[in-house]
């Protein structure tokens, strides 16, 4: 595949995703003209691109689809569920076709032929006029960038002397959009006095187009001196889509010799008010979809972004050494400079980080689709509601998050939401709901997936745990502890394993995946009310706010968000402590002396620092020599040799060029508590 083709595949993948998204929205609002137009447009781009870059299969295949949606667009065909289903399968198939060799695969080829046959069938049925839809005039006025202009073009009589044909100009103008033209012939003399080399006609044109007034003016650029031209913008929308309006215009202005501009404006204003009353509600709903198309963006290779991030990380580190140097040497002249650089660096860092953030919206389409398909498969009626789709996350996080979320949603559809009949019996709404909400919370992003299904049966979980020997039969567990059992590897409560949820992987894999991206999972479930899974993630993987501490000259960083409090405690207290518990603020706190745990040689200090960190819902103390202060750590991997070393999540380079190790306090406490 050459470079251009690769580029096309990249672009086409985006187009196909957009298409899927548009189709999903269309399913909810089948009459929406803008959406249909969008669908058509995307198909058209796919067809064009496919043909240009040698993806003939895509080009041919999309051509047929495009024909269907052209008919839909022109109101000759109605959107039906059947049609959407075919289109959805076609979208999936298009993804396959992105591989130029796809049709050599027998299964794909068969699928290709079946789909082509289905599409052909639709096209055939189309010639049946019965499926014509009623035109809904209210839909026509919405959206798009079309504006309506009024042009008065009065050529001088001599305009044809240098070979200009004003009709060509009018024709060109009409090519820009929809138009309504009134030729004004009142100046044309009697035939006896008529000079065929002169132009007597002037034109008044209503034009609805996406072009700007300047672009319209350009049409007349060569006749500027030979004519009078007036362009007035009448409205920010297309006036000419509505039959009533056109009739009105015709009635008002056709018979006149000349249109009075004031009269015209008044007329438009009236129309505008009418239209606004009608449109406000519809327009708001549409915003979410059209907004995306307006945002201008560029495509950047993700490697380049990674590279940029690395450079910025290095800059942050270098800048820290500069600050340190200035502070040590007390160079006054450099002080100001260093501060400036620090400022710029911080801004650059923030910008660079924001570049690598993508909204979680990018993965939501997939979930919409998943739920749609699964609901059909399981014959369940489910609505998927999302909130905070614009919440942004580091792209690597989004990548790591898709699979676990997919799994959670599958679980909700399969085990959570009950069939319609059962729901009605329980007095619930017949339609089940899966609710995904994302929001920022401090330096974290929280993603909540909630369903209103039957919830998790604690008794079943407990029974199973006893069966599998995870707990003893007489164990006294709180509800939360029972729920946490689900995260034990190999634990799956599904009675009958289905294709959807039981693939031998369960919530333990979800937890592991989320752990990998330094997030946490929390599960809440109420019988017959539903299940809520809360995932908490760091905003970015590469920078953390940390607390810099020291043990025997080696520096460590603890994630600041987990640090609770710092206490100065005499070493003796720890030595005398019974059962690794120390009493602080009247509270018993379990502690681990990192000096011992890390087998550090050397004498402990008389006065040590106890840093309490949050662990699950407890406070646990970690004893260090000194606390140096807050530090923004650029996280660097320790490298391949430390691949199984998970109590250290990485290293960071300090201002003086030495390395501090970033501690994963959760893992440390987990490991030490297991050991003891």
């Amino acid at each position, binding site marked *: 595949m050459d470079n251009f083709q690769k580029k096309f595949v990249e672009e086409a993948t985006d187009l196909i995703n957009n298409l899927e998204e548009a189709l999903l929205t269309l399913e909810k609002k089948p009459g929406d003209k803008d959406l249909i137009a969008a669908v058509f447009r995307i198909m058209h781009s796919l067809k064009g691109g496919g043909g240009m870059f040698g993806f003939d299969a895509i080009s041919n295949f999309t051509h047929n689809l495009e024909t269907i949606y052209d008919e839909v667009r022109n109101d000759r065909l109605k959107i039906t569920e059947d049609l959407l289903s075919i289109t959805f399968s076609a979208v999936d198939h298009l993804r396959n076709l992105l591989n130029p060799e796809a049709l050599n695969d027998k299964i794909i080829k068969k699928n290709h032929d079946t789909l082509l046959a289905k599409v052909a069938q639709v096209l055939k049925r189309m010639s049946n006029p019965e499926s014509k839809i009623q035109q809904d005039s209210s839909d026509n006025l919405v959206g798009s960038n079309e504006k309506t202009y009024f042009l008065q073009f009065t050529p001088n009589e001599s305009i044809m002397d240098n070979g200009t044909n004003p009709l060509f100009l009018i024709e060109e103008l009409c090519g820009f959009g929809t138009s309504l033209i009134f030729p004004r012939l009142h100046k044309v003399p009697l035939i006896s006095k008529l000079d065929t080399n002169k132009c007597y006609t002037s034109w008044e044109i209503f034009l609805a187009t996406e072009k700007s007034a300047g672009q319209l003016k350009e049409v007349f650029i060569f006749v500027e001196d030979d004519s009078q031209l007036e362009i007035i913008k009448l409205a920010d929308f297309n006036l000419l889509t509505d039959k009533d309006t056109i009739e009105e215009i015709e009635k008002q202005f056709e018979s006149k010799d000349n249109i009075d501009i004031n009269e015209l404006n008044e007329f438009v204003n009236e129309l505008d008010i009418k239209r606004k009353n009608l449109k406000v509600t519809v327009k708001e709903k549409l915003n979410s979809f059209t907004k995306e198309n307006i945002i201008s963006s560029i495509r950047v290779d993700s490697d380049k972004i990674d590279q940029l991030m690395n450079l910025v990380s290095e800059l942050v580190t270098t800048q820290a050494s500069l600050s340190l140097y200035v502070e040590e040497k007390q160079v006054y002249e450099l002080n100001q400079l260093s501060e400036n650089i620090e400022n710029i660096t911080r801004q650059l860092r923030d910008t660079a980080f924001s570049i690598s953030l993508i909204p979680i919206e990018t993965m939501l389409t997939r979930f919409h689709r998943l739920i749609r398909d699964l609901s059909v498969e399981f014959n369940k009626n489910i609505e998927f509601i999302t909130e905070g789709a614009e919440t942004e996350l580091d792209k690597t996080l989004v990548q790591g998050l898709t699979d676990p979320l997919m799994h959670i949603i599958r679980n909700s559809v399969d085990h959570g939401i009950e069939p319609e009949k059962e729901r009605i019996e329980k007095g619930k709404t017949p339609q089940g709901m899966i609710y995904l909400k994302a929001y920022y919370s401090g330096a974290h992003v929280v993603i909540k997936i909630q369903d209103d299904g039957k919830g998790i049966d604690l008794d079943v979980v407990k029974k199973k745990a006893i069966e599998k020997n995870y707990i003893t039969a007489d164990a006294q567990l709180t509800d939360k502890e029972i729920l946490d059992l689900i995260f034990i590897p190999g634990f799956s409560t599904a009675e009958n394993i289905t294709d959807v949820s039981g693939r031998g992987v369960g919530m333990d894999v979800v937890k592991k995946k989320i752990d990998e991206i330094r997030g946490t999972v929390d599960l809440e479930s109420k019988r017959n009310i539903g299940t809520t899974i809360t995932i908490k993630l760091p905003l970015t993987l590469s920078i953390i706010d940390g607390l810099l501490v020291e043990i025997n000259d*080696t520096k460590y960083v603890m994630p600041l968000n987990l640090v609770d409090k710092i206490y100065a405690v005499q070493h003796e207290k720890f030595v005398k402590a019974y059962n690794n518990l120390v009493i602080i603020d009247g509270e018993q706190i379990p502690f681990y002396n990192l000096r011992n745990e890390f*087998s550090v040689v050397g004498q402990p200090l008389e006065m040590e620092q106890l840093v309490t960190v949050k662990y699950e819902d407890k406070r646990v103390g970690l004893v260090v020599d000194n606390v140096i202060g807050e530090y923004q750590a650029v996280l*660097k991997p320790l490298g391949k040799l*430390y691949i199984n070393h998970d*109590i*250290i999540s990485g290293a960071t380079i300090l201002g003086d060029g*030495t*390395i501090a190790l970033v501690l994963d306090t959760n893992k440390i406490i987990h490991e030490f508590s297991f050991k003891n």
Partner: protein
Amino acid sequence: MIDEEIVQSLNSYLSFQLGDEFFAVHVSKVLNILELIPITKVPKSHDSIVGVINLRGSVLAVVDIRVKFKLAHSEYTKDTCILVLQVLIGDEYVDVGAIVDSVHSVLEVDENQILPPLSVGVKYKSEFITGIVKNNERFVMILDIDKFYNLENFTSQVEEIAAD
């Protein structure tokens, strides 16, 4: 830029000293020779990994070959260096630092001058040694650094520690 293939085809080996013994690695494996700088120890790691250093903004793990060869630890001197080696671990090239007592010279060795390693009565596991070269009345052992740094050599013991 020097062509990778040319470097590969060179018959040059960098010799260095560990205790009383002389070793050599192919020059294509050596990226850099650093003087000894403070090394940050990583707790709970394998004995033969000394720790990490800052190599121009990235983190480089440093290992002590002595531990592997069960040589006695010696004090660091002004001759002690860190060789930055490019090592194949799994199917990926990874930069690794190695502490050596001193770096000697680059030896030009003809293919036919390399003697096969002895398989009987040797102190060192011959799997790491590809051959022996005689140089100035001294025997220099050529190390197969890729085998030496085989990932399992390190991780297995880390797991043992974690399992304790």
